[in-house]
């Protein structure tokens, strides 16, 4: 067991996947000679060669399209989209081509493509380089979506993504690159669709991913001093989603707050709440709350940007307000 950064865990996962399978190759803008603008791929071209770790032109359609064609011929491409926002430039390739190729051909092919995208707010990149756009893909069936928050999860989910025969989007959160965590000396792949109960609790369940997970934990720690016991659950993949673990947690705590780094419309958080209300209305002692980012583009100035993000204080306040009006099911 060693302590590594999230960035180092990503690098290790890519290196181990390249070493394990000759059909794996990496491509993207500035990922090879430069090692990536966030250095996730540092040193990989030197180790695995220019034929397997390739720099591309600034051409996101060409990058994603190439992964599709190569995967049809049996390769396992891993593409990097430098900022997740740039997925919009190649949305057709992801949503219309990659996601539907297998289905439209009646299952003649598999498209084992992994796309890694640098995600989220990390300090002043502005409205076009700070979004967490995983919600853009929720309504496109055919894509798996991984959202790791820790080094071990980043390692394990990337290994599973690359080995998976379906297309997978792996969102790597920029604000987490320098965060540290334990990684096993022989780290293992982590199955998709398995949530982690990060902190057990009995009064209320918070569901949070990526950079919102540490904030949810901070809020939970602060609330403990007020004798409020919060359970924090991280789904780790949005597609497939571990409804069982999240639903069971709600059944125990009977109160729910979902935290996401994106506006509420058409989002995983809103979808999760809708489904839990539909399926488990009797489990709620209070109305579920979605703590989301504001309904504006992401502003640049630090004061504006930080106010846009769900803060630890906002999360804690949502928990207090929810519990203040909760009526236990048994008395309802």
């Amino acid at each position, binding site marked *: 067991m060693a302590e590594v950064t999230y960035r180092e865990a990503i690098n290790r996962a890519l290196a181990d996947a390249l070493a394990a399978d000759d059909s794996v*190759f990496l491509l993207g803008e500035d990922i090879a000679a430069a090692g990536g603008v966030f250095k996730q791929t540092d040193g990989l071209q030197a180790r695995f060669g220019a*034929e397997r770790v390739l720099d*591309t*032109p600034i*051409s996101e*359609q*060409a*990058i*994603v*399209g*190439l*992964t*599709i*064609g*190569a*995967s*049809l*011929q*049996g*390769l396992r*491409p891993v593409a990097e989209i430098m900022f997740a926002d740039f997925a919009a430039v190649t949305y*057709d*390739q992801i949503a*219309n*081509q990659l996601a539907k*190729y*297998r*289905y*439209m*051909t*009646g*299952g*003649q*092919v*598999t498209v*084992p493509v992994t796309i890694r995208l640098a995600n989220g707010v990390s300090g002043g990149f502005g409205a076009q380089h700070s979004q967490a756009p995983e919600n853009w893909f929720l309504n496109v*069936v*055919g894509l798996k979506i991984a959202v790791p928050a820790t080094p071990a999860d980043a390692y394990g989910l990337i290994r599973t993504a690359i080995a*998976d*025969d*379906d297309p997978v989007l792996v969102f790597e959160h920029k604000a987490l690159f320098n965060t540290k965590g334990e990684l096993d000396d022989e780290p293992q792949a982590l199955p998709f669709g398995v949530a982690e109960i990060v902190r057990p609790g009995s009064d209320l369940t918070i569901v949070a991913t990526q950079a919102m997970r540490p904030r949810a934990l901070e809020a939970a720690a602060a609330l403990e001093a007020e004798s409020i016991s919060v359970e924090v659950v991280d789904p780790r993949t949005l597609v497939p989603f571990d409804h069982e673990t999240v639903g069971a947690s709600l059944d125990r705590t009977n109160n729910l707050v979902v935290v996401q780094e994106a506006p509420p419309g058409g989002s995983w958080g809103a979808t999760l709440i809708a489904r839990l209300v539909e399926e488990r209305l009797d489990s709620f002692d209070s109305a579920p709350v979605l703590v989301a980012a504001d309904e504006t583009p992401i502003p640049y100035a630090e004061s504006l940007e930080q106010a846009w993000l769900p803060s630890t204080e906002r999360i804690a306040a949502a928990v207090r307000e929810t519990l203040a009006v909760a009526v236990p099911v048994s008395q309802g």
Partner: protein
Amino acid sequence: MAAKQATAPPLEEQLDMLRSMLEIRFFEDECQRLFARGAVRGSTHLYQGQEAVAVGGCRALREGDTMTCTYRGHGATLAMGAPLAPTFGEIFGKARGLCKGKGGSMHLTDVTVGALGSHAIVGAHLPIANGAAFASVYRKTEEVHLCFFGDGSTNIGGFHEALNLASLWKLPVIFVCENNLYGEYSPIALTTPVARIVDRAAAYAMRGEQIDGNDVIGVWREIGAAAARARAGEGPTLLEAMTYRQRGHSRTDPATYRPDGELERWLERDPILLHEAALRESGVEDGQLAAVRAGAEAAVAAALAEALEWPEPDPEERFDDVWAAA
């Protein structure tokens, strides 16, 4: 060095190319009748008049080579060797169609013959074609990829990104622009500032040639030469095959925008008539040509009758083939 190219395939192969062109023609005529009657759903984009491009191109390939094409893709898919009845079956939405009824007219695919897909978002498959070609480079094999697209595809971003990367990485891909003079309903000059699409190759330091798309043997020769260069590591070629769409863009388009006399002039250069005339000059008897024609017509009629009898997919099958892994 590229291998020296033969100037024409053996006569027997040339006769088989005629058979393939005729099967595509009769196939498309049947599709047109069925769609006109409302017997088939969705839309369809017919290929009559362009058969020489698909047949000449696909016959220039070797075992293991692959092909992608557009939503006007019945011809190219059949030219690769997709069987007639399952191809009809897919257009009719039958469970035994090429894609089990999940794709339809615009998405005909048969990977067993190297037909990797028909693509309905204009220009989107050019980047995908690069990927198929990249796999040959990655594995150090000699397979090439043949990518058909229309003149209308050359004004969309994917075309430019794909040609740029293919040339940069010397990918073994042959880009064949079927210039049928119309992008959907608009004549090419209304949408495209260059008079010759092939001039765009220069922007990507790529070899480009404009060729007669109605001369099946000429197409075979030029695509064969481009394939030989690609196999030799010399990278991609852009070919502009001049041809003509004898029908409208899709089933709802009567093509009233054509100038007077244009269709008639192109019908005189019908690729099947041209090829039959060339075969006659090579000494093939009229009776032999008639037999090929009758054989193709009978094969299409039999496939049509067979496919029409097939059952629709069970509604529960809509959940299949979304995911590879459970």
